[in-house]
Each structure stands twice: as structure tokens, then as C-alpha cells.
């Protein structure tokens, strides 16, 4: 197992290096961190001075290798744009994204498993068809549209309809101006979590359903039923436990990708997380911020992919990692 993990980690190093070099090259080729300074009346003097100060007048390869050396030494540098410390900026934003992911995963997994199990147990029932339809709707719905509709129909309309002084849910950031209570936090958290969960629930519930159907047609389930084990026990103890194995690995991979992939949700709900940080940094050509972001995200993706492989071996002893 240890050899497998070490080998997987070793394989990921060239992947990260290539990815960072490509992102560096593409970002430099398409954006200019000094473009915003062109509005200065003093641009003729300011631009060459800043280009020199930031080292942008050096060849691309020099810029990249200098960044890589500093990064490996633990010096993540300052943002080109805001001059903030990149490490603390990413740490803060990662903390906010983790909150969203934690609650989103908890909510999505609970609903998806419940829906998947029910749909498999009551295959071709009216509710199964309903869940199937809703899943396809969830998968095909653009996130930004769902988010705006959620604000309209879960915040605005109920506020008008019930003449509320304030909406039940809130859509701006993590907390209100004068209220940092848990209730206020939950009011802010609900819609981003719901938005994040729509596609996860839709995908995972389909996965859970098919996995459950596979398991329920297995010989050992038939044997358990023949031995007179109760339907509930067959379903939950023998069926669900085994059907969760493939879903667990899918979830691990999806969770890894979520660390960098919540751009739209964070943008619409003014949630100061990793996705928004990346979006702003990329648009402004702030490679000093984009590259460490990429490293952190890559570590999570690689880590969770590795976790998925390891979990598969642990949960299913028939699979040996070699």
C-alpha cells in the first residue's frame, strides 16, 4: 500500500510541473497584469518602472523558474495586483471554500444516497420516475441560472408574499453586517449549498441507484433473502454497504475537483472562496496568485484521487493495490 501511495505521489510531480508551466505560459500570453495601469496619466513612466519592479521584463523562462524556486522554498510571494501575501490569501479563501464544500457534501451525499436507495428499492415506481426526471433536470440546469432562480424564488418572492421585514435566506457573503450568529451564518449558507448540491445530488443519486440495482441482483443478496433476512436488513446492511463502495470513490474524486471548481457559485453569492480568487486573479493576469492556487488545487485533486484508489482497496478486499 505504502509503495502504491509513494509511486502515485511521485507520478503526480511531473504532472504538476507541466500544468504549472502551461498555466504560466497561457496566462502570460493572454493577460497583462499591468494593463489596468494604462489609465494612469503617467503611464509612460509608470509601466516600464512596474514591469522592471515585478520582473516582467525578464524572459518568460526566467520568470517561471524564479517563481518555481521561490515556491519550493516556501516563498509564495505577493500578489502582483494587491501586493497581499499569497499564502495567507489562499489560506483564507480555502477556509471559506472548505465550509461550502463540507456542508455541500454532507447535504448532497445524504440526499443522493437516500434517493438512490429508494429509487433502486422501488424501481419503476412513480417516485423513481420523478427522481429520474429531477436528476436529469438537475444535471442539465446551468449553475448560474439555478442560483439566480433560487434567489428569486427562495428569497425575494417569499419576502414579498409574506411581507417579511427581512428574507429568510440571504445571498450576500458569509454573514450580515451586524450579525455573526450561527443562525445568520446558516441563512447565508443555505442557498450556496443548495446551488452546489443540485448537480452533485443529481449525479450521485443516479450513480447510487445503478450501483444499488447491481448489488441487489447479486447472488449473496438472493441468498440472504432466501435465508429469511428481513427486507430492510437486506437493503441497508447487505445492499447499501456494498453499493456505497463505487459511490465513495466517485465522491472522493468529485470533492477534490470542488476545491477549485466553485467559481460560479462563489461569484453569485459573493462568497469569498477559492473559485472567486482564481477568477479575479486570472482576469487580471496575476500569475503570482494563479500558480500557487493551481498548486493547492492540484494537491487536493491528486490527494482525493489517491484517496479514492486507496478507499476502493480498503472497502473492497477483493481489490489489491499493487
Amino acid at each position, binding site marked *: 500500500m505504502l509503495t502504491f501511495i509513494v509511486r502515485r505521489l511521485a507520478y503526480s510531480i511531473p504532472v504538476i510541473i507541466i500544468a504549472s508551466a502551461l498555466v504560466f505560459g497561457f496566462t502570460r500570453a493572454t*493577460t497583462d497584469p499591468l494593463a489596468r495601469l494604462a489609465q494612469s496619466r503617467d503611464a509612460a513612466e509608470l509601466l516600464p518602472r512596474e514591469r522592471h519592479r515585478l520582473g516582467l521584463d525578464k524572459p518568460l523562462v526566467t520568470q517561471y523558474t524564479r517563481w518555481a524556486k521561490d515556491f519550493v522554498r516556501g516563498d509564495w510571494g505577493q500578489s502582483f495586483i*494587491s501586493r497581499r501575501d499569497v499564502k495567507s490569501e489562499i489560506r483564507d479563501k480555502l477556509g471559506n471554500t472548505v465550509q461550502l464544500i463540507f456542508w455541500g457534501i454532507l447535504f448532497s451525499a445524504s440526499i443522493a444516497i437516500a434517493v438512490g436507495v429508494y429509487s433502486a428499492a422501488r424501481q419503476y415506481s412513480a417516485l423513481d420516475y420523478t427522481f429520474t426526471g429531477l436528476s436529469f433536470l438537475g444535471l442539465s440546469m446551468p449553475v448560474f441560472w439555478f442560483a*439566480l432562480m433560487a434567489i428569486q424564488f427562495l428569497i425575494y418572492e417569499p419576502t414579498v408574499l409574506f411581507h417579511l421585514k427581512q428574507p429568510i435566506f440571504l445571498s450576500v457573503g458569509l454573514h450580515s453586517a451586524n450579525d455573526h450568529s450561527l*443562525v445568520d451564518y446558516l441563512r447565508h449558507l443555505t442557498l450556496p449549498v443548495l446551488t452546489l448540491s443540485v448537480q452533485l445530488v443529481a449525479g450521485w443519486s443516479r450513480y447510487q441507484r445503478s450501483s444499488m440495482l447491481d448489488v441487489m441482483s447479486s447472488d449473496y443478496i438472493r441468498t440472504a433473502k432466501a435465508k429469511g433476512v428481513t427486507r430492510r436488513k437486506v437493503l441497508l446492511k447487505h445492499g447499501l454497504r456494498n453499493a456505497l463502495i463505487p459511490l465513495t470513490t466517485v465522491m472522493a474524486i468529485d470533492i477534490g475537483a470542488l476545491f477549485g471548481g466553485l467559481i460560479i457559485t462563489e*461569484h*453569485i453569492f459573493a462568497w*469569498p472562496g477559492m473559485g472567486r*480568487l482564481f477568477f479575479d486573479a486570472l482576469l487580471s493576469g496575476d500569475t503570482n496568485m494563479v500558480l500557487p492556487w493551481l498548486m493547492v488545487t492540484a494537491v487536493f485533486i491528486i490527494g482525493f484521487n489517491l484517496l479514492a484508489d486507496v478507499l476502493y482497496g480498503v472497502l473492497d478486499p477483493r481489490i489489491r493495490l499493487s
Partner: protein
Amino acid sequence: MRRRRSAALLTLLAALSLVAAACGNNGGGDGKATTTTEGAKAVKGGTLVLGAEQEPDCADWISSCAGASWGTYTMGAQTMPRAFDLTPDAKTVPSSLLAGEPKLESGPPQKITYKINPKAVWSDGQPITSSDFKYTWDQIKNGSDIYDKTGYKDIASVDDSDPKTVVVTFTTPYAGWHDLFGGFYGVYPKHLLEGKDRNAEMKDGYKWSGGPWMIDHWTKGQEVALIPNPNYWGSKPNLDKAVFKFITDTAAESQAYKTGQIAMFYPQAQLELTQLFTLPNTKHDVNTSLSYEALWFNTAKDPLTDANVRQALAYATDRDAIVNSLFGPVQPGIKAINGFMTPGNKQWYTSEPFKKYKKDLTKVDELMKAAGYTKGADGMWAKGGKPATLAISTTAGNKRRELTEQLLQSQWKEAGFNLTTNNTKAGTLFGEWGPQGVFQIALYAQVPPSTDPGICSTFCSENIPTTANPSGQNWTRLASPAIDTPWKQVDKELDETKRKDLVEQGQKSLADALPGLPIDPFPDVLIYNSAKLNGPIGHNFAFGPFVNMNLWWCTGGNCG
């Protein structure tokens, strides 16, 4: 079973607490009445939550990491003392920092004497003195990371021998002196910053103030909160707190306003905003800002090397129709601008120079024939068998600009020009295509930093990008003494009447030589909830609409 009941009970409690929170009261205030300068009855207390569609990068206003208008709107204008204010009708007047109008001596050398208001103090009670002016000048002139040294680099000395009198002496005449020790910069406190790393002290926000507000906290990516400066010598804020929430998505910002999470916002003009105008208790105020959009001709590229062709394009354009399509629903009656300036700049705007450029296809024919072109069987102009092909570039993804391009394509086709689009990212357009002269026709905006009319940096021949001066801003590459002479003089002339004449002369030269065609002024849109918010709310094109927020108040002391 018990566990399930407990879970259900918890869920119910959570739901009830959310509903209770929704019905509850947010914020407070002691409800004490006072009187504002407007004569209406103001109420103390309350927290005002506002939407901010951009987050500033840093709060060291003179540094190259600053330069964003939203930095001034949210923090700079509220905390930095400045020599001059801008009135709602865009006139420059001495601020409360000064004891009166500064004394201008034309010289040579040009000298300005500022008298500082004896009551003016920093938030720690220390007086604001001439040494603060001198420190500010020194930081800007000698700093290595300064956003814009214009004007400050022309200062020879700042005399601070009298703490309440500042005497500024210039090396060369500088007509835009009203922008100094103010504008987006303000005056820096020497006693708090001298000997320290100024940028490190200020870039993430600072705890001192020389304005009506102080920065309480700036949580990056979320909000900046202001609280009253207890030692402000002018009108102290009525509100307990003002919080700017950073909502960078306009649709989300509109929804936040609709759902009552923000009481006011200051969005970029777009047609979708009209949906909000009819909401109950919603007031919207639209005015013409200082910013404008124009077509910029690269006069080094054929066929735009010929002034006749440029003029023919101007006569092929129905600018009012374009402006109406873009902004008519937001600002009814809006018209195309007739100079590289907008009517928002009341003191300097002149409405005549570009007035002649109205759609006139007969004029197009005359000018194109004079340039040696003939119309082919396809109705398109060509010269020596070579068609007058045109390509326009703008920032990809900007819907308004793409709509402008479509309207131009249709109008110019009717006049015999085939216009194609070649859009790119903002960074490429402004970082490469502009300076390197890659574009043929470009469509982009100018955002003047103040009402000062000088635009030599955009049009004078010395600012054409060259190998020696790669960052020159005259991307039209038109070198014309007729343009250079008045605009260079505008930057030096201290007599305002003569300066106005020079501006008119300069705009006329631009209209004749036509390095570009001004099109639309940007509407300045304010949307707020009048049931929650009161006071003299209006536009300020330099410092933003929140500049006099110290005079605003919440209905009943509660803006929640």
C-alpha cells in the same frame, strides 16, 4: 425513535430560528433627531449596507496597487483629507480642510498658498499641518511605486515653515493644480507614517482618518465597514456604521437590492436595470458621468491614413441612434457627445466641435471620391481594385460594445464599408494591440481621473508609442501640430477663460483631424431604497456618490 424525534425537533427549531431571524429587527440606533445641512430632520444611528461592484486592490492610494475608482468611493474619499471637493455640478471648490480659496500666483514661478483650516485634525487629535502636505509630495515625487506623479513632479518645493500655511512652488506652470493634494490621493499623515513602510502600513486598510469616517475593518472578498471619526471637524456621520458588500456580479447585486440585503448600489449602466426602477420605494437617479466611449482610429493603418476616409466614416455613423440603443431606456433623451469629454464636465464641455458629424451619405460619397475611391458593383468602396476593408476591435465579452459593433456594421454597410470584428481580451487590447498599433479601429472607454480638461497624453504627438517611449498613450498615432499646440498649452495655462478657449480650439482640431470619433457618454446610475435611506443623495463624478454619506440617515435610525 427518540433520536429521530430529536432530529425532527432540531430541524423544526432551526427552521423557526431562520423565520424568526427574518421577522426580527436588524441594527439599532438611539433615534435622537438632529438636523442636516439640507434642513431636513436627520436621525442618528443604524447600519447602512451598500453594494460595491468592485473591490479595491489596495488602500495605499498613491501606490501603483491602487488606482481603482472603487477604492476612492468606499474608503479614500471618506478617510483622506483633501484640498478640493467637487460639487454635484462638477465644480471644484475648496474643501473643509482649507480655510478658504488658495492663493494662486502665476509667476514664474507658479506658486500656490494653501491656508489650512485651524480645526482640521487627524482622528488621533493631532492637527493636520503643512508638514503633511510636504510629506505627501515627497512620497509621490520620490516614491518608486507611484500610480501617477503628474503635477507633483513639477513641484520644486513645499514650504512647511508655518504649520497652517502651505506654499507650493512649481518648476514649470501646471494648470491642473486643483487635482493636487486631493483627487484620488488626499493628504497623508506625516506623524503616523514617516520612517515606516508606507505601503505596508496602508495597503490593507488603516486605522487613522482625516475625513468623516474611519475604516473599522476590511475583510477581503467580503466587505469594508466604516465607522464615524469622532474627531472629524465637519459634520459628523448620522449613521453608526456603513458597510460596503463586495458583490461583483451585477445580476447578483440587483437581486441583493431587490431582496433588501443592500439599501443602495451604484451599478454600471445596463438595460436590465430598468426592471428595478419600478420596484416599490426605489429611487433611481441617472446623470451623465465623465466617462465616455469612442471609436479610435489607428491613423498609421490604411485606409485610415487618409483624413477623408476617417471623416467619411464619421458621416456614415448615426451616433445618436447608437447611443439611444445602448442607454435610451436607462437615460431617456441621452445624446451622443460632441467632444472627447462629456456634458457631465460642465465647466469644460463644449458641444460644437463634433456636432457636424451626423449621418449624411452624400457627404460620405463626396469624401470617399475625394480620397480616390469608387463604389464597386457590390456597393462597397474600393481604390485601385482594393476594397476599403475595416476591422474593429474591442474587449471580447462586453455585450454593450459588441452591440455597438453590430450597429456600426449595419450603418457602415449602408454607406459602402464592410466592417469585420476582431475582438480580444482587455489585457491584450490595452497591453499589446493599443501600444503596438495592432488594431485598425478600436472601441473602448476613457475614464478621466478628474474634471481637468487636459488630454495631451492621449492625443499629442510626443505620446505616440515609439521604441524610446513604448508606453505612450496616443494609440491613434496621429501627429498633428494643430492638435499639439492647444493641448500642450491647456496643461500650462493658468487663466481659466483662456484655458476654456484653448480647450475649444483643441476639440475643434480633433474634430477636423479625427483621430477618433466620440460616441456615448456613460450614464451614472444610482439606485436606492428611499424608505430606508434619506439625505442629500446624488452624484459625484470624482469621489463617488457616497462622498457625503456623513449627511445621510436611516429612517427611524434603522436601515435594516
